């Protein structure tokens, strides 16, 4: 069960990160805190930050750096247009997946 849950969570991290940023730009620490408030997702910094970096590299996120007088600069992440399209596509696929699994669980045998 643990192995399956781990694999499932691995696939969800990107979708969850993009969803956090739907409501507007946010900085790394706050993104992690928001995701960690959802125990069932069980993310850590080791999963979120590499995903943030990769999403930026792939063009789904943009970064705005704000200098700080008391520590390292704060990096604010926000969705790009490509990122907005990406999360919309993920929404569509998620809905399809949800419906398909529900059908399987209800044993209706309907093709989706």
């Amino acid at each position, binding site marked *: 069960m643990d192995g399956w849950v781990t694999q499932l969570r691995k696939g969800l991290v990107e979708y969850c990160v993009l969803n956090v940023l739907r409501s507007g730009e946010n900085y790394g620490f706050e993104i992690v805190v928001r995701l960690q408030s959802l125990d069932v997702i069980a993310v850590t910094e080791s999963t979120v930050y*590499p995903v943030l970096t990769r999403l930026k590299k792939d063009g789904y996120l943009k970064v705005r750096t704000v200098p700080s007088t008391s520590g390292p600069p704060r990096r604010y992440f926000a969705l790009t247009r490509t990122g907005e399209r990406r999360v919309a596509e993920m929404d569509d696929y998620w809905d399809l997946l949800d419906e398909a699994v529900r059908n399987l669980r209800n044993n209706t045998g309907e093709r989706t």
Partner: protein
Amino acid sequence: MTQTTSVDPRVRDYLAAVRRRLRGLEADETLAVLESHIHEAVEARRAAGEQGDLVGAVLADMASPEEYGYLEQPRDSARLSVLGLMAVCLVPLALPVVWHALLLTPLGEGSELPAFFESPVYRFLLLPIGVIAPLVAMLLGSTALHEIAASNGRVEGATLARIGLLGPQLIVANVILLVAYFNTAPSVAWPMLLGGLVVLIGLNACAFRIVLRSRPTG
């Protein structure tokens, strides 16, 4: 003035350990955000009224450095598949035997059998090796592909493994074409020969590409 977390040796050690798990420019970007995270976490605890070793408390709560990079294995730790390398090295050993075999068939009619094929070196050494080598190369190539697929990025060299797997078949096909060509048109001007060679190389590349795309590699 608040001491910045970046001067704390424990933070530097933590970031250094995480860097070893990541790669390239992405590592720099990730580490910059991570350093900021540590600082924000310390400030959040301070704002909540916590006292004492805040940096230690934050680091204790964070993921260990070993947990980083499991989504993307660090490439500099990947090794080349030894099986794939061996497969590629075995493929050329089949060439003399395949040529000899084709010269003995109707395709080789009219071609003079080189004296080399009568020599003891060929008959007792290269011939048995040349018969076994392609079979072993195909076996090693297939095993190497499975090894690479199962390694989750720790082993690389899929191209070498595929050459080992497909090489013997391609050699046979090419030698058949060449023997048939030279037997039907023995005297050929060099531009035509060059053109024919280019076409042959192109056909090989296409065949390789078509076969590779149809084979699952895990």
